[in-house]
């Protein structure tokens, strides 16, 4: 029967048992490329996703730097004539027609491109599809995700969708803002690109649903023997909650974007007030997805923080259940607060309800922060790059989250809505939260990925530059916002210049920090020191296999024998007990 079995293995997408690292090429150069392109191995898919999303991040980052350069001066400096002339050469840019009409438009196009790329192509798939794909099965002790082929499909759908997004840029760019508000998005003349970009977001939604669905099922059915729900690492809890949001919220943006396309092509009049439609309906639809999606961005980041924090201060995480349940609570409540983006466009009743619920969602988040800080207490804290980024996360995300409060309160939001205060708020949570946590996770798991260590001091320097640059860039924007600077402004009144200049200088520092990180990563890939199986002393299952993992993840079937954070009870795999003194066993009956 074994042969038959093997035959069916192929059907399920697996090759022969091969104990080499998943990175070891088994075929010639072309064969290897083909192997990667058709792989159903979650690790390879994770790595491919990682490169793709980082590429998108850099693309979006370049756009951001362009914005910051434009904003150095109150008047427009990206010259209209110049960009107008350039746009002519792109198909769909309107040819002759676009030349002058879209003159003032370059800033708006870059701004939209920045937002859309960062949200749809970078941060939403970001952590779940890269780190999640790689580590979720490993941490569960599984050989793969539940539906490996669906996983590969999700990657291809992602690439296909992103291609539409990039295409829309080459067609001359979209200038609607990432929110695509109607009727602007449905009535601006001569813009087939809008359809391309909306289609991109629509297609990317499928990729997101596939990933989410896969992870939910994997978590339910592929946990290692002995792993109950409360033995799962918190990263899994976070990804699991994220996946629920992805599966339940994404279809709604799907239908919304579909309707938007029909509206544009056929003027069916659902969203366009000129035809009897309701633009506020679009906003409701849009935010019904896009609010929950901000927790798709932050929950996996919080999961990373829980892992990194525990390992690098070698301490049992405080309030495991509170953190796990708060992830679920955030996922649930996130569906009820979307209206807080529309306080200035909806009626009193809605405003009241949504403001009230918004404050609810802050509580489980606060609970997480308190528990993390409590975990530090009496820990054994190292200052590795992942840990430094964790401190940065706690600092920046707290600011980001706390500045969500005046946005959630009605009378203050009337002032702050659509101002730079909002811009600063969401960069503090998205960059200061998600990107910083992604960086923490990347460094933490880097050895597992590629089997090599990174240059610690180089990475620390990058971390410092990113932290300082980020604060200089975005803290100033809070003042801009309260003093009256609206967002999406290509030019502004002179009083604001000083803040904008400081902000731009910060952003250049930030970009420089990323250059440093890039060098560190490249250096590590080729020249880095070989990593051991468990360089940090982690207790989750991914540290129990080789570095980098073998093709089938584990030698034999892993069985869970200890909790993910039992640092005071178990010697981490790959460590010599001599180097890891354990405390005296607790007296009987005093077990926590």
């Amino acid at each position, binding site marked *: *029967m074994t*042969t*038959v*079995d093997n*035959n*069916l*293995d192929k*059907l*399920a*997408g*697996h090759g022969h048992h091969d104990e080499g690292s998943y990175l070891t090429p088994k075929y010639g150069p072309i064969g290897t490329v083909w192997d990667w392109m058709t792989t159903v191995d979650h690790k390879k898919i994770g790595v491919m996703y990682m490169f793709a999303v980082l590429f998108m991040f850099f693309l979006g980052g370049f756009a951001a730097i362009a914005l910051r350069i434009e904003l150095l001066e109150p008047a427009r400096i990206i010259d209209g004539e110049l960009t107008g002339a350039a746009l002519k050469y792109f198909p769909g840019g309107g040819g002759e027609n676009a030349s002058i009409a879209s003159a003032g438009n370059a800033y708006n196009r870059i701004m939209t491109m920045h937002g859309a790329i960062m949200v749809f192509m970078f941060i939403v798939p970001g952590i779940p599809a890269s780190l999640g794909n790689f580590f979720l099965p490993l941490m569960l002790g*599984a*050989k*793969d995700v*539940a*539906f*490996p082929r669906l996983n590969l499909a999700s990657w291809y759908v992602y690439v296909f969708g992103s291609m539409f997004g990039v295409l829309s840029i080459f067609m001359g760019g979209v200038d609607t803002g990432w929110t695509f508000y109607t009727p602007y998005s449905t009535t601006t003349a001569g813009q087939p690109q809008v359809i391309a970009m909306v289609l991109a977001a629509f297609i990317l939604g499928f990729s997101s*649903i596939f990933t989410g*669905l*896969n992870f*939910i*099922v*994997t978590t*339910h*059915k*592929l946990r290692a023997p002995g792993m109950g729900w409360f033995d799962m690492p918190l990263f899994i809890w976070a990804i699991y909650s994220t996946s629920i949001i992805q*599966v*339940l919220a*994404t*279809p*709604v943006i*799907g*239908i*919304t974007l*579909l*309707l938007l396309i*029909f*509206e544009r092509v*056929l*003027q*069916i*009049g*659902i969203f366009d007030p000129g*035809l*009897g*439609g*309701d633009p506020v*309906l679009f906003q409701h*639809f849009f935010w019904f997805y896009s609010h929950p999606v901000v927790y798709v961005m932050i929950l996996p980041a919080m999961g990373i923080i829980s892992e990194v924090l525990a390992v690098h201060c070698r301490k049992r995480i405080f309030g495991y259940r509170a953190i796990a349940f708060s992830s679920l609570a955030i996922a649930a409540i996130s569906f009820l607060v979307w209206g807080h983006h529309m306080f200035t466009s909806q009626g009193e009743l809605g405003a009241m309800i949504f403001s009230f619920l918004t404050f609810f969602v802050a509580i489980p988040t606060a609970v997480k922060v308190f528990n993390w800080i409590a975990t530090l207490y009496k820990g054994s804290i190292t200052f590795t790059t992942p840990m430094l980024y964790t401190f940065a996360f706690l600092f920046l995300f707290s600011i980001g989250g706390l500045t969500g409060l005046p946005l959630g309160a009605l009378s203050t939001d009337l002032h702050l809505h659509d101002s730079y205060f909002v811009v600063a708020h969401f960069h503090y949570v998205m960059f200061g939260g998600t990107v910083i946590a992604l960086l923490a996770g990347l460094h933490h798991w880097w050895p597992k990925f590629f089997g090599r260590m990174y240059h610690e001091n180089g990475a620390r320097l990058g971390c410092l530059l990113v932290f300082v640059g980020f604060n200089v860039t975005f803290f100033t924007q809070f003042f801009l916002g309260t003093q009256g600077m609206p967002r999406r402004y290509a030019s502004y009144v002179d009083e604001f210049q000083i803040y904008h200049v400081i902000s731009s200088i910060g952003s250049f520092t930030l970009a420089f920090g990323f250059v440093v990180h890039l060098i560190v990563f490249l250096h590590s890939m080729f020249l880095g020191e070989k990593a051991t199986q468990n360089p940090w002393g982690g207790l989750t299952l991914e540290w129990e296999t080789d570095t980098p993992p073998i093709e089938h993840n584990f030698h034999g*079937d892993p069985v869970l024998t200890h909790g993910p954070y039992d640092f005071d009870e178990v010697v981490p795999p790959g460590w010599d007990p001599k180097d890891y003194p354990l405390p005296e066993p607790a007296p009987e009956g005093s077990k926590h």
Partner: protein
Amino acid sequence: MATIDTQHSKLPGTGDEKVSYWQKYKHGHHWRNADDEFDAAKIGIWLFLATEVLLFSGMFCAYALFRLMYPESIAAGSSYLDWRWGGLNTVVLLISSFTMAMAIRNVQLNQQFWARINLLITFFCAAGFLAIKLIFEYIPKWGQGKRPGALFNYPFAETSHESVWWGIYYVSTGIHATHVIGGMVLIAWLLVRQHKRHFGPTHYTMMEGVGLYWHIVDLVWIFLFPLLYLVH
């Protein structure tokens, strides 16, 4: 052993019984046992169906809002639809849902012949649904100028927002029809695999999955039918 023909081969040691794929199939490589795999597929399908329901519920929300805003236009638009065609199509889909369920039952009992018949009926019901929709509804209405949005060109419109009504009508039934087409592709695929004896009492995951999908497509129509055809 490596020479086993997956379709028709003799089970070692027993007369001339055929060993089919479904009998040999154990489970995918990364699964610990077949039950887990089956459960996982089930959960996966249900989650997918949840996304489908949410997709359509967005459409229903838009519909509800328009009903509130322009009740007369919705009523007028609806009065142009003939409930008899809609009703007929409802019956067609209900039959197909029934035969789909039967086909799964057949497979579970290893009644391969009947499974094929039932799948075929399901397939043709789906085709019939689309044909009725196209020939008796879409084409004549389009010809009369009852078109969505900017294409609306019906000279005898009585109320102000009939173009919007047709927009909602075409988009919602169109998305539904796309799902029917998708279902037909899936059923055709099942037919091929069923022909190759891929399904049987111990392995019918795909049948079950497609079946559930087909019921949802049916269910959506059960909602669309009264909302579009029967409001006055």
